[in-house]
């Protein structure tokens, strides 16, 4: 082990930290029902380890770092585990560690006894989940990758079904597990194609193998399918809006903020690292899927009435943006426009990081809201800014960031993505250079709709009047929860203020993947990735300008007109009585979108008649893909299995006959 440590010190440190996560998880089993032990000791410890993982990831991103390899004395006799730490894994480890630390600290204040699984067991599942994600990013052979991938799926399945006594949660968990395995099958087959007949399972061998163009495309499509299932690409997204709301909020945050990124990591690893190059239609397909996913996700997010479902659909949107960026990078790479590919990839990486920050933040905020109120239906919340000022403030930062508003981090990646689209007319292909720029229209539409979604999310939960009288008793989050939220919010602000640093960091990864970097520009204060005089943005000065202008306005108004202010009843055009029920409900706020994009939804609506004694309004919106793709598939499967059930006659002799016939058949084959 000693020479290993000298050969690959950072990788050994990361492995040690991953082991420490497992250890912390195991310690949870010592006293499975002691909330204090698990919450006050183990989860903060996990957060510390997370910081360590992030630091190691950052170390792997330093300019002087060379990829480190390790062969572990673990695994099957002739199949040892290979581990590799390079810039790409370093970036995603940094993402995992830093966002994971915030979630862990929050979890320390969040998990309580009596909510399904015992805390100790939960702690084990939680840390195994984290460790397996780290191992996915470290794996350098298909065997270890699949082991880590499946561990990740299983541990998260158990976490999703924490409240396994509720049937709908069991159902969501089953759907999740099913889709996870269908996806894993795709990845497995992809690796099966990639080794190119050499049966070497290390990624190095796969990089070296030369494939026929047809098999390369097959491998790419399998990877797109497999990782797309995990990422929630439309139409493989159906598990996502079921599983995320079912899980406890920190777990939703991990799944949405972190686990989806492992799929992004995998897609990048296979399509840009292991496959040397491909035709442009890979990129166009990925781009189209990404854009479709983004638009679909955000349109569905606007009409949700459950706050966690809303966020889940918003995750689908963000994954769509990320995948669209990957598609652009692939298109550029196929035309050898490496700097532009690097630009697209930079946008992808920064957006992945941003999404980990703000989506975790918002999921955690919904957790606090649920603990304080016991409600997750938007229609029963409202006015919490007055009861939970801390959570409201942090959630505001998260909401503004996810809506892509400057000067927060969401805007940075959106800006980069749009800049990339501006370069697409340079593609030397007659049709592509006209089609691809139109993608910018879809991106801007999705971004604008994200603003709509976030106003709905924030406005309905935190603003207005309490829609239920019980909300008046809501209490703000505990201090550990606040630290977790503050950590993530700080990340949003910092990435927003110093985008040029993020640009440099992402540059390390793009250098490794496409052999080019995006320059930040001549000045340390600006980010001018295309050319200095073409496009520039400075998050920090933007902050300064906005704060200065706001402050100056405030001071001037104060100085000249002393703040005479009187509190009275609301005006509301003089209407004499108002109830909280008269505010827009979640359905009401989404109504314009439902109206505009009517054909996209499958709507079931019960409208009361004027004569109804007890009028009732009910609306249910369903995913069309569910009825169009999955139900027929399920029915087909059902029919096939029913046919096969004939075999199961129930008589012992018949079963023995099957065994007998199989034996004969095998003997015939062998002889």
């Amino acid at each position, binding site marked *: 082990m000693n020479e290993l440590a000298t050969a690959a010190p950072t990788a050994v440190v990361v492995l040690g930290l991953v082991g420490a996560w497992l250890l912390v998880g195991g310690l949870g089993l010592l006293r499975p029902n002691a909330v204090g032990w698990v919450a006050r000791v183990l989860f903060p410890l996990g957060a510390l380890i997370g910081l360590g993982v992030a630091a190691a990831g950052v170390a792997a991103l330093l300019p002087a770092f060379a990829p480190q390899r390790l062969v572990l004395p673990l695994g099957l006799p002739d199949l040892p585990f290979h581990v590799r730490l390079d810039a790409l894994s370093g970036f995603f480890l940094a993402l995992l560690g830093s966002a994971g630390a915030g979630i862990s600290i929050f979890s320390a204040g969040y998990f309580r006894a009596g909510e399904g699984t015992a805390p100790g067991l939960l702690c084990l599942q939680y840390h195994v989940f984290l460790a397996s994600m780290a191992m996915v990013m470290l794996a350098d052979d298909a065997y270890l990758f699949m082991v880590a991938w499946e561990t990740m799926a299983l541990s998260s399945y158990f976490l999703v079904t924490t409240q396994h006594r509720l049937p709908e949660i069991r159902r969501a968990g089953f759907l999740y597990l099913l889709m996870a395995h269908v996806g894993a099958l795709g990845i497995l087959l992809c690796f099966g194609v990639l080794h190119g007949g050499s049966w070497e399972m290390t990624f190095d061998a796969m990089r070296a193998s030369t494939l026929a163009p047809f098999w390369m495309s097959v491998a790419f499509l399998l990877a797109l399918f497999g990782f797309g299932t995990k990422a929630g690409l439309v139409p493989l997204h159906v598990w996502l809006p079921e599983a995320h709301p079912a899980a406890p909020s920190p777990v939703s945050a991990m799944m949405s903020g972190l686990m989806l990124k492992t799929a992004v990591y995998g897609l990048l690893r296979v399509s840009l690292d292991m496959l040397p190059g491909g035709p442009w239609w890979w990129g166009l397909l990925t781009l189209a899927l990404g854009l479709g996913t983004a638009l679909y996700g955000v349109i569905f997010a606007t009409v949700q009435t459950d706050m966690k479902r809303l966020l889940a659909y918003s995750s689908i949107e963000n994954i769509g943006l990320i995948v669209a960026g990957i598609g652009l990078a692939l298109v550029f790479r196929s035309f050898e426009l490496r700097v532009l590919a690097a630009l697209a990839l930079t946008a992808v990486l920064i957006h992945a990081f941003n999404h980990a920050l703000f989506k975790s933040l918002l999921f955690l905020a919904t957790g606090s809201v649920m603990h304080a109120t016991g409600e997750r239906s938007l229609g029963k919340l409202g006015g919490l800014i007055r009861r939970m000022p801390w959570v409201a403030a942090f959630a505001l930062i998260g909401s503004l960031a996810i809506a892509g508003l400057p000067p927060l981090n969401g805007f940075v990646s959106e800006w980069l993505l749009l800049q990339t689209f501006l370069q697409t007319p340079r593609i030397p292909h*007659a*049709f592509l250079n*006209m*089609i691809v720029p139109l993608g910018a229209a879809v991106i801007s539409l999705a971004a604008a709709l994200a603003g709509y979604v976030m106003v709905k999310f924030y406005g309905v939960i935190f603003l207005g009047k309490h829609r239920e009288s019980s909300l008046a008793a809501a209490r703000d989050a505990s201090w550990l929860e606040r630290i977790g939220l503050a950590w993530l919010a700080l990340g949003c602000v910092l990435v927003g203020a110093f985008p040029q640093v993020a640009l440099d960091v992402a540059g390390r990864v793009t250098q490794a993947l496409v052999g080019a970097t995006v320059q930040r520009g001549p000045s340390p204060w600006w980010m001018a990735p295309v050319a200095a005089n073409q496009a520039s943005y400075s998050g920090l000065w933007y902050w300064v300008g906005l704060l200065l202008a706001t402050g100056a306005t405030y001071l001037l108004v104060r100085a000249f007109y002393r703040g005479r202010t009187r509190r009275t009843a609301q005006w509301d055009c003089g209407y004499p009585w108002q109830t909280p029920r008269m505010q827009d409900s979640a359905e009401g706020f989404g109504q314009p979108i439902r109206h*505009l994009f009517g*054909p996209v939804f499958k709507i079931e609506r019960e409208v009361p008649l004027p004569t109804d004694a007890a009028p009732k309004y009910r609306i249910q919106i369903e995913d069309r893909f569910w009825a169009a793709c999955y139900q027929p598939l399920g029915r087909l499967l059902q029919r096939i299995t029913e046919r096969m059930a004939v075999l199961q006659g129930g008589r012992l002799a018949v079963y023995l006959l099957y065994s007998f016939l199989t034996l004969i058949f095998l003997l015939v084959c062998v002889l």
Partner: protein
Amino acid sequence: MPAPTFATQVLQTLAGALLLISFAMLAERRSRRLVTLLIWQGVVLVTSTLLVAVTAQQPHLFFSAALTLALKVGVLPWILLRLMRRLGIERDNEPLVNVPTLMLVGLGLVVFAFGLAQPITALATTVIRQTLGIALAVILLALLMILARRKAFTQVIGFLALENGLFFAATTTTYGMPMVVELGIALDVLVGVFIFGVFFFHIREQFDSLDLHHLETLKED
């Protein structure tokens, strides 16, 4: 490619205006305004033909410009307006389903047309040929308009817009068709509109409306 001259720029702008008018026609609900748009289309066409005639020194194009002016800005709109008055559909409002979707389909057609025309424009020796994509788009949009409309009257307007697109393609890419062909087409259109007018009266007599979905009842089961 040489830097476009001012005349080419004007021509390109006119082509853009033609496309704009096509989209406006797609979204316009009132028949009266559709005729106005058609007149505008004719005006743009006349201007562009004159421009090509001057810059390319093709005197026969002056004739076709005059012909266009007389026919498409003068006679045809006059006939159409008269028909409208006689049929009493001057204030008709045609219900259109889902204009944004229609527009999106139209946009897709434009992308398609431009994509088709791009290899040709890339090879173009005359800068004028670049407008072929636009002409193609105008034709496709007119076809889309005919498809999307339910009233016979507006379909005829779509047909005339289609003819305008063809004419524009002819003038800008090959400096117009031979005079005989052009005269023939002009006569055809004129006669066509007369025949349509007669048909309008017959359809209305039969069904009390110009809505074409009534024609579906003619099908024998």
